[in-house]
């Protein structure tokens, strides 16, 4: 008998008392009515607590703010599909030198390792936990690009920010390659004292973009 059939047989045999299969009790919070301003305020508070650097800007200030952040930075990886209007000018001499990574022209691992920063968009964010979610859609790129460079600059749009985790997950397609990021890489392995900065990007900078108001 194959291992598969044998294990399934053992499991069925173990359940011969036919235990009840209760429906999940979902009385926990699943929706929120928190305003955009409050969601942004909460997200900023959580991100700062994780030692991320955060800026909140209006929809017309994004390009300028990103240009400021990247001024003088050497190589900056940007995924294909990143909003062109937000992209700083490529400056071969003083930086940033923009290196585009896309499905047709992926950068080599060594290029990612040598890059000084990566700039991506995001799919969603959870204010309550200070979590930014990337799902590999255009503008966010494959998983390796937001991992290998030591500095990650991530744009979060207000419409994508929910107060609660269930609200954010409900908007996502779980079969996409998803990365949830809550602050820079960290460890609590030595005396359970949190230290920011191990293998993932040691610097996380978040640009939160307010919605355009009528």
């Amino acid at each position, binding site marked *: *008998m194959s291992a598969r059939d044998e*294990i*399934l*047989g*053992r*499991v*069925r*045999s*173990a*359940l*011969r*008392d*036919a*235990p*009840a*299969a*209760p*429906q*999940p*009790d*979902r*009385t*926990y*919070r*699943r929706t929120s009515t928190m305003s955009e301003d409050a969601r942004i305020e909460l997200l900023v508070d959580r991100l700062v607590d*994780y030692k991320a650097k955060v800026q909140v800007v209006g929809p017309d200030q994004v390009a300028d703010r990103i240009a400021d952040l990247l001024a003088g930075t050497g190589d900056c990886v940007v995924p294909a599909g990143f909003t062109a209007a937000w992209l700083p000018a490529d400056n071969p001499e003083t930086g940033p030198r923009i290196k585009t990574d896309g*499905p047709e022209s992926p950068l080599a*691992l*060594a290029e990612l390792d040598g890059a000084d920063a990566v700039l991506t968009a995001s799919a969603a964010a959870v204010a*309550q*936990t200070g979590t930014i979610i990337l799902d590999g859609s255009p503008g966010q790129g*494959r*998983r*390796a690009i937001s*991992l*290998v460079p030591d500095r990650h600059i991530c744009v979060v749009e207000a419409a994508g920010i929910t107060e609660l*985790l*269930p609200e954010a*997950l409900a908007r996502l397609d*779980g*079969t*996409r*390659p*998803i*990365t*949830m*990021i*809550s602050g820079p*890489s*960290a*460890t*609590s*392995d*030595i*005396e*359970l004292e949190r*230290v920011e900065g*191990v*293998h993932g*990007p040691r610097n996380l900078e978040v640009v939160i973009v307010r919605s355009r108001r009528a």
Partner: protein
Amino acid sequence: MSQTFLGMPSLPVFGEGNIHASEPFPAAARRELGNAQLRANLGHATHTIRDKRLKVVAELPDWEQLREAGSTIKQNVMARLPELLEQFEENFTARGGTIHWARDAAEANAIVAGLVRDQGADEVVKIKSMATQEIGLNEYLEEQGIAAFETDLAELIVQLDHDKPSHILVPAIHKNRTEVRDIFLREMPEVDPALTDEPAKLADAARTHLRRKFLTAKVAVSGANFALADSGTLAVVESEGNGRMCLTLPETLITVMGIEKLLPTWQDLEVFMQLLPRSSTGERMNPYTSLWTGVTPGDGPANVHLVLLDNGRSAALADEMGRSALHCIRCSACMNVCPVYERTGGHAYGSTYPGPIGAILSPLLTGIESEENSSLPYASSLCGACYDACPVKINIPDILVHLRGEDVDSKRGKRKLPTQMDAAMQAASWALSSGKRLGLAEKALPLGRLVAGPDRKITRLPGIAAGWTQSRDIPAPPSESFRAWWRKEHGKGPEHQGPDHGTGQDQGTGQDQEKGKP
């Protein structure tokens, strides 16, 4: 989905690997308690994490509802495990992943080694994983000429020191920063000799040490925190980014996961991703969570394998009282609140799974009769702190008591003559079942005072009762029983109310008093 039995109901098949204690818990605990440094490190670490957990749990007004949801979802998973496993397999395979089934540790190890060899590799990078620890994968791969590099900081510390993990979340919890610094200086050839014991500097040394490995590794081995049946998605929860490195950069990814880790739907993740980080590291959310579903062209490994491991889980599932131990999401909150674990540390439990959950899970996986695992259910004062802390509400104290019963029953079956314990229990049953007999027994109290002597302490009891006096004295019994004292002070009479109403009456048993309560 087929619901038919494949043959007759079978006897449980227990697990093997690093889940057997090789010496009785009391002996191992005695040795570990002698290490004052260990106790100081553990006391500091467990109290730090306890405080953090309480703070972030208190932030959520719906924490108890989340626990209830976690508990019901896991009950649902266990009851529907065969159909969910088949559903998961179908979805994972449809997305380009390959599933392997392993009956036990040896089979899982052989599958992983074969897959590594297929890639022409002689080394792998590893993400911290309880399942691979349980099956002793690193040791097996080493025998096969394959080097396994642990990449989680704590696992790296333990591996470099040729030590064993002592905690499921922070395996090097028993070491303080100075000890870690000394290990790095000794075992990392490239490290700066001026390395200080500041945790940030130590983390930086680990980053430099492992960077090349991450960028050149061809094969990675991981565990998984969750597997979603309705989509075939796997999840790994981590902090450092070593997990993301292993899950994203190598061409081949091999994941080893126990069959109980399934969740039915994507929606269920919203419950467990709230319960796990707050319970384990005491954070609102862990820094990184990765989710992958089979193979995504152009993003991450092209060869994605999953080894589904039984190794005694089906046997644990067959125990109606004990099966909820399989609800465990390996958060380690029970360890951090346990007064026994806090003092003995994880090594005393002799298994990959220490602490309160280990004291039930290890004997459930191996069978209560396996080696010294029968001593584990007694490694508890039954205080119940673990049950309160458990994010999926596993009633650990109840299962501990159940397994103690299993242990006594299994030993009784092997003996022809009643033991001292049987005799003592029978005598107690005879005396306590009638007030008259209890009164008779109480007449022996002055005898106890005589034994206690002038210091009013009994320091050694005979026979099996010696176990009790091994670590504590018994105060001398009073010169008269409470009931005798009451009779003397208050006499008999109907005017007396309260729980004493049966005093002096022969039928004044506990049972009658129960009935008298409103």
